[in-house]
């Protein structure tokens, strides 16, 4: 599994005068589920693109298992760290869903037999089998997102970065994507979710990295971090529903474990009984 270490990272786009990322230091270990949160323009997507080598640091370094991303091609990095764009349509070009899923495997030179097996498996696990001959552009928003994830997860990268997974999704589609990501977390894959949707993040990620104006203003256990009113306001976020509920129910000393609604209520009833 993969370990990402970022040291003193500074990044700015060519021709821009200001740095988009300033003095970023972090380490994402294997099997971690991390949410990158922050206001619009905080540098979340830029950070994510630095983590998978699409962008290279101007100063400092990003290392994947000790190897500097500057010395690795994007294709080599993509094999280990998958990246799902915020707009799935940005990657669709094939005539059918199955061809879309096949694309990455062909680029990486997988043998034909393995390609067919993996495509079949990915279509099954992401609930896309019935659409295999459909044009990707004709799918619904949620199906498109699932296809985008399937076309990356088909080669089983060790880590997945997913940009704004819930944008434009209805509740059912959101739950579906949430289920997919939680499955990946349970498989001990590293998941990095870039989102504004703190409730979604709280349901998937243990850890949060909060960015504001290109700097990390918070890094730690998501629920603890987002119970800090000042930090939440500074990053133009809102407290996740589950954190608010825990506070309202007087469950002090927020648990670091990964509680869902049912376990919060169980803790509340235990507290009432005692």
């Amino acid at each position: 599994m993969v370990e990402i270490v970022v040291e003193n990272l500074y990044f700015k786009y060519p021709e821009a005068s200001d740095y988009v990322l300033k003095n970023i230091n972090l380490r994402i270990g294997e099997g971690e589920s991390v949410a990158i949160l922050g206001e619009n323009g905080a540098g979340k997507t830029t950070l994510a693109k630095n983590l998978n080598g699409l962008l290279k640091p101007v100063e400092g370094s990003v290392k994947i298992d000790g190897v500097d991303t500057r010395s690795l091609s994007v294709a080599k990095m993509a094999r280990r760290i998958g990246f799902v764009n915020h707009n799935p349509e940005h990657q669709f070009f094939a005539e059918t869903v199955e061809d879309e899923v096949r694309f990455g495997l062909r680029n990486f030179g997988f043998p034909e037999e393995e390609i067919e097996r993996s495509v079949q498996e990915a279509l099954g696990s992401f609930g896309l089998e019935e659409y295999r001959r459909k044009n990707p552009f004709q799918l619904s928003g949620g199906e498109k997102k699932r296809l985008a994830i399937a076309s990356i997860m088909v080669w089983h990268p060790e880590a997945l970065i997913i940009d704004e997974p819930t944008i434009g999704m209805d509740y059912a589609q959101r739950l579906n994507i949430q289920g997919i990501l939680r499955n990946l977390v349970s498989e001990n894959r590293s998941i990095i979710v870039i989102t504004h949707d703190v409730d979604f993040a709280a349901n998937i990620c243990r850890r949060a990295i909060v960015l504001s104006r290109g700097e990390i203003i918070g890094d730690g256990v998501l629920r603890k971090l987002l119970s800090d009113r000042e930090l939440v306001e500074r990053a133009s976020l809102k407290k996740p529903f589950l954190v608010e509920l825990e506070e309202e129910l007087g469950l002090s000393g927020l648990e670091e474990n990964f509680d869902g609604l049912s376990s919060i209520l169980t803790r509340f009833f235990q507290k009432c009984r005692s």
Partner: protein
Amino acid sequence: MSFLKAFKYKRKESAVHRLDPRPKFLLAVVLMAVSIVFTDIRVLLTLLAGQLILLFLAKTLREWVSSLKGLLFFFAIIFATQIFFGGTLFTGFILSLRLLVLSSSMSWFFLSSTPEDIGRAMGAAGLPLELTFSFIMAIRFIPVIYDEFQSIYDAQRSRGLELEKGGFRKRVRNLMPILIPLLVGTIRRTYEIADAMEVRAFGASPKRTSYKSLKLKRGDYLLILFSILLVSILIYLKLLGVE
């Protein structure tokens, strides 16, 4: 796609920016016409030098230089077709230089004229509002399309696509996963914009007025005179037999 940067308006405080877009457009058209008519290397190099002076005066030389990287692909196609169809490297060079002069002719104009001013100039020339508006929108969308291209390119690179890999044919084929989503996205956006404009009553009033009108000043008249002089010199050169 970086060549599109050469056609994106850059807000600067310069004498060229302050000129009326109409004489600027006239000079740009003259420069374009000359680069099409002449193949003589001396004429093309003189034109290029003149354009560099214009770009320097408009303080947009840096933007022009950074756009050149995008033209390298087209130069490669020109050289490849020349070699493939029995031309020489020199003809490849002349044609590439011609393309450079041709694109630069319009580049300094677009870099130094706001889309709104270009629209006003087109309106003043009696062109219909629909055409003027479409043209302005096309210019305004250059940076949007450029950003979208970058995003699509990143998405495909994340799936192992390597544009730099393989021979010429493979590289051209590799562009398909980028061009198709870009084209689909652009067409979709066109329909959305058309709908958004219609719901805001675009075209409901047949005659529109503008709060700002264009007025030619001394510098603009000088530019018109210069354009006429340039055309006269080049007609004379043509009569002398310069190719």
